[in-house]
């Protein structure tokens, strides 16, 4: 039991990492549920990468990275909305263009500065083991905001995931609630990048929620599974990273993706047994 508990009980940095990780997992599970249901995975990925130039500029001028991330996310969402509304291009094209443009801009900014080598790794993969109490508090507030949004908007979000036309006819503005949903995803990405980094936050957004979707017949259950898998990944990833001296952020994401595939395989085996019981017994 010691190897499971001692790393957290005798190292305050590990305990802080776990607390931050649990908060990130809850936020990502809730936002990720709607990323999966609304088919917004690409925009989730793009937001994760598109905040890079904002963070880079913020660090260059001495501002907190989180402010730069917020500006970067705002620019991405505004740009996607503008291109989609003012042209015949689908949102996929708009997202792809801004995604790659913003990522390149971030790399250009980083490459112009000699002082960025350590910071770049921190931006891309996070610094969960060096998380500050202040960052945990910001994460706590963001998670509470996300929970509040989902509670308030549960009906329009459900209708929007079911059929946007039904949502509109029922009196819930598709544009308004879609933007609130994007705002929720953006908050999640912005506050989570400090913990797991811009590259890896996408994994936490989709893997636990994806595994939850495979197991659930209700959205609430899907969200609960997603939170469970997220927290389990966080705990296991931190533990593995501690005992084997591996990068914490990447270890967490590897665990979460592994959990997804384990659930996927188990579900497939169960489904085959349910669909072809006679064939299996004959075989």
């Amino acid at each position, binding site marked *: 039991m010691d190897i499971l508990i001692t790393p957290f009980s005798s190292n305050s940095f590990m305990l802080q990492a776990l607390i931050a990780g649990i908060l990130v997992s809850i936020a990502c599970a809730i936002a990720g549920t709607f990323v999966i249901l609304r088919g917004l995975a690409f925009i989730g990925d793009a937001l994760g990468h598109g905040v890079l130039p904002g963070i880079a500029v913020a660090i260059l001028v001495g501002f907190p990275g989180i402010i730069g991330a917020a500006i970067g996310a705002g620019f991405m969402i505004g740009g996607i909305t503008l291109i989609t509304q003012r042209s015949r291009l689908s949102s996929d094209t708009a997202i792809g263009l801004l995604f790659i443009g913003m990522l390149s801009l971030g790399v250009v900014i980083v490459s112009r500065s000699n002082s960025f080598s350590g910071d770049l790794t921190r931006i891309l993969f996070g610094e969960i083991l060096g998380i500050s109490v202040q960052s945990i508090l910001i994460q706590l507030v963001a998670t509470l905001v996300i929970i509040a949004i989902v509670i308030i908007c549960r009906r329009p979000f459900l209708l929007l*995931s079911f059929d946007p036309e039904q949502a509109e006819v029922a009196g819930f503005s598709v544009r308004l609630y879609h933007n609130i949903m994007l705002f929720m995803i953006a908050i999640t990405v912005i506050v989570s990048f400090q913990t797991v980094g811009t590259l890896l936050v996408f994994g936490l957004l989709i893997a636990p929620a994806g595994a939850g979707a495979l197991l659930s017949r209700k959205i609430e259950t899907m969200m609960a599974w997603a939170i469970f898998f997220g927290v389990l990944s966080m705990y296991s990833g931190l533990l593995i990273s501690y005992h084997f001296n591996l990068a914490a952020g990447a270890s967490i994401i590897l665990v979460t993706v592994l959990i997804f595939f384990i659930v996927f395989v188990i579900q497939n085996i169960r489904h085959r047994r349910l669909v072809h019981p006679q064939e299996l017994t004959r075989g």
Partner: protein
Amino acid sequence: MDSQGKVVTSPGSVSTPCIQAKALDIGYSKEVVVLDINFELRPGEAIALIGTNGCGKSTLLKTIVGLLPSLGGQLSIFGTPPGSNHRRIAYLGQFHNSGFVLPIRVVDVVRMGRFPLYGLWKRMSRQDDEIIFTAMRAMGIQKLADSPLRSLSGGQQQRTYIAQVLAHQADLLVLDEPTSGLDAGGRELYLQAVNDELHRGASITVATHDIQEEATLCHQVMLLARKVVAIGTPQEVLTPEALLKTFGIVVTDGKRLQVLETKHGHGSSDAPEAKK
């Protein structure tokens, strides 16, 4: 009720029309689909929109529920502009993309039909649960209440969507090809449910291909072929001549009319695909 089981409203009824269209032009942003539509639908009445694919049926329905703006003329729903009567209108669209991804049970889908009445916050009561169960029973899916939507067949899913519309208990039901995918039992339940809704005093606007059963249940029929070919009672409108103009070719075998659609709608001059 008349001899066909249709609800008959008094000719002198002076109630506000559910739908009033005057010289209405409909279409998408730059493309006009149908010009100069004129009709009125009163409480307790039903109108069937009939025509080939792309003739403007769905466009008219979407304009009525406020999903598309009208391009000209006047359209009022319960005396107000479209899109301002969410609590009174239930809409069944043609396409649902949620079947395979969304983890949701049948009862939850039907429950969504009550959302327009309760907005963001208001809690539903036990009476709502009874209404939801009654709607499921009307479509014969009460035993599937706890089943995931994605595990159902296409026909069962369609029954669920119809039950959702019934659960709203709306004053106006706007239905886009509601019987597509339904088996004979499902169609029978649907027709019974439509009749019950009319008895309740609701009005119905339905786009359909079903000339024999569904359209003849309606008080009015509108034939569309990117223009209004004819509008009136089923007896007046469902004539071989009018159907010929709408669909291209019509076969009569004694009592039944059989429509054989042209290869392309919209009054195309292509040769009809007649079965030999």
